[in-house]
């Protein structure tokens, strides 16, 4: 048993931290205030190889493991949660489906461009009427000649409008549930593909979230990811590792809140009431970090990690919410003013309890395994 990071992970963390604190963090306030995409941050991340963390070297990526991915998102989120989720969605649910389920030609065609950051990835599963119940999706993919024609509306799509490639889930078969779902790679610029409404949100303002509308979008068979009817498997596996990334994001936001509260308390003095709150905050973050790293460690070794990823996502994001509320309480009025990192962290943290499977869905995943297997 050794619960310290190996030297290669520590070195990687230090490198990401330098970028995050040097380039990403100075943009965070403005990105939030102006609701603008942090283009410079994403470009810098791409130049440092962070858009291809999980992609093998032969396809132009860094070839690192899930633990490095969690660390990468954690460090970015400490600086700017919007930037973190853009990179997270790109890396996990936007890219991993190709990595895990793509054929050699698909990998060769798409992965190098995703790894370099030339293309930003996105994941289009959710629809207006199917959120937690993803298998009820309505978007259709009709066979037509050598390819498919896709119709439907996807919603809550992170990176919408900025993505170069969308992993889209649509119904190909007669089965009305999971077995009828197939995954497709749909490049931006496809005829009939357009961005619908882009939402104003309470947080993560630098990360665009909105609708993706598909109207008779022709997709060649070469862009079908995996077999017909296997799309739901692709989605669930992508979400499992996506949850590791979101755990990292929760950790980063929570750690930033702890650190900012510490600095503030040191500067202005502190009494025991706030000391105790800070101790509980830091303890919770520490417990959450190990849960996330454990899930990532299992994933990296090819072991089952679904339950651990759900536990990590649940605990890290509930922790982020709790800790950011507590930090703002310590900060007081100053912390509640627009532009303060305290109020931004709190607004950003809320999304994490909802997306990538709401925390209620995580509890269902965990409980199902407990009840079925003990």
């Amino acid at each position, binding site marked *: *048993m*050794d*619960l*310290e*990071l*190996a030297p290669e*992970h520590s070195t990687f963390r230090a490198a990401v931290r330098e970028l995050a604190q040097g380039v990403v963090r100075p943009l965070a306030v403005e990105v939030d205030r102006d609701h603008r995409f942090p283009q410079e941050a994403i470009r810098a991340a791409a130049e440092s190889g962070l858009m291809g963390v999980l992609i093998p070297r032969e396809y132009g990526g860094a070839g690192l493991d899930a*633990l490095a991915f969690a660390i990468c998102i954690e460090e970015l989120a400490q600086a700017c949660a919007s930037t973190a989720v853009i990179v997270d969605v790109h890396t996990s649910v936007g890219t991993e489906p190709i990595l895990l389920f793509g054929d050699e030609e698909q990998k060769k065609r798409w992965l190098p461009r995703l790894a370099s950051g030339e293309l930003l990835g996105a994941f289009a599963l959710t629809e207006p009427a199917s959120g937690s119940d993803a298998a009820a999706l309505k978007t259709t993919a009709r066979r037509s000649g050598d390819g498919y024609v896709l119709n439907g509306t996807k919603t809550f799509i992170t990176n919408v409008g900025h993505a170069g490639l969308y992993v889209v889930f649509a119904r190909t078969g007669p089965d009305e549930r999971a077995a009828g779902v197939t995954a497709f790679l749909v490049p931006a610029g496809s005829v009939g593909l357009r961005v619908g409404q882009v939402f104003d949100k309470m947080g993560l303002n630098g990360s665009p979230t909105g609708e993706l509308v598909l109207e008779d979008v022709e997709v060649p068979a070469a862009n079908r990811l995996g077999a017909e009817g296997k799309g739901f498997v692709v989605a669930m596996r992508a979400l499992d590792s996506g949850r590791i990334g979101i755990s990292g994001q929760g950790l980063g936001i929570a750690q930033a809140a*702890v650190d900012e509260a*510490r600095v503030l*308390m*040191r500067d202005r003095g*502190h009494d*025991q009431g706030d*000391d*105790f709150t*800070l*101790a*509980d905050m*830091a*303890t*919770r973050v*520490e*417990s*959450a970090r*190990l*849960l996330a*790293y*454990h899930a990532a*460690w*299992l994933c990296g070794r090819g072991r089952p990690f679904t339950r*651990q990823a759900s*536990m990590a996502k*649940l*605990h890290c994001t509930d922790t982020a919410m709790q800790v950011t509320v507590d930090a703002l309480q310590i900060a007081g009025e100053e912390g509640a003013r627009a532009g303060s990192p305290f109020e931004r962290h709190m607004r950003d943290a809320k999304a994490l309890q909802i997306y990538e499977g709401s925390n*209620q869905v*995580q*509890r*269902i*995943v*965990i*409980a*199902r395994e*407990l*009840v079925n297997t*003990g």
Partner: protein
Amino acid sequence: MDFEFSAEQVAIRDTIRELVQDRVAPRAAEIDQTGEYPKDIERLFADNGILGIPFPEEYGGISGSSVTICMGIEEIAKACASSSLILAVQALGSYPILVAGSEEQKKRLCPPLASGDKVAAYALSEPGSGSDAAAMQTRATKHGSEYVLNGTKQFITHGSIAGTLVVFAQTDPREDHRGISAFVLERETSPWKVEKLEHKLGIRGSPTAQIVLEDVKVPVSNRLGEEGAGFKIALAVLDRSRPGIGAQALGIAEGAFAYALNYVKERRQFGQAIAAFQGIQFMLADIATQIEASRHLVYQAATKVDGKAPDLTKVAAMAKLFASDMAMRVTTDCVQLLGGYGYISDYPVERMMRDAKITQIYEGTNQIQRVVIARALLR
């Protein structure tokens, strides 16, 4: 990073798990009800080398690793918290010797503890000095080649059955923390008096004694470290023992959860197992997640003990705080999951809930842990 126990540790764990299942679990309810110290289980642990876990081989033990100690405590506590203290306090009472003893002292004092021929105990608290340990009144006065000790020690786990007792006392009349020294008392040559045994809410099979020292003579060769080094030793010991209490809390919670999980799968209401209700399922998910998070913190702290990490004090306090608060919540929820049956003594979870409470109090209350953590963060 490596989240797994070594093959050797797994082998030790499996041995303990089997012994606990066969010999400890069937006795747990009775131990609690009678409030009698389970001498038979002490023998069982001694005979199977479990009491040797806190000691390296050169002092007659089998490990000395904090990770292994925690693993052992956790396994035993799943069935019986009182019995888990037999190992936990053997470690606690021996740490001062292992941390601050000379080579001669370790070679002389440890083997009978490692073999289980003697039980160790640790006497720091006094009636008037609990969290404020430095305010202790017990005094040690030097006369030639020995010290004479006088004072009263409070809440001494195993104080009534121990053969070896580490006592902290003032050797300097200034009476602050710089005047505290540590001594090893051996019952045959430095006998102490057991004034009373406490009646307690939980861990009822683990005797908690008030001890009176009246002109107890201790040879100078049984002083640990220098005069005045006692408080430092006490703090170093707490850094090492707190992960163990975290492990105990973890084990109690796991024991209660295993029972409750099984129960909700069997118990049928409204035509289905109550495990099928989402309200119950969410409780199960939260409990399992909290246990898992605690486990990592406890073993992280244990690896930091073994690796002598510079941030050990903070992490050990975090592990103890988080795991014990978790155990209190989880055991309370487990009683809730069993409903009325959870509240009666025919079922084990009410005992586990009572046992959990002390983990928030001893080895530094959780308020003290927060003070320690905040101090480390704000330094």
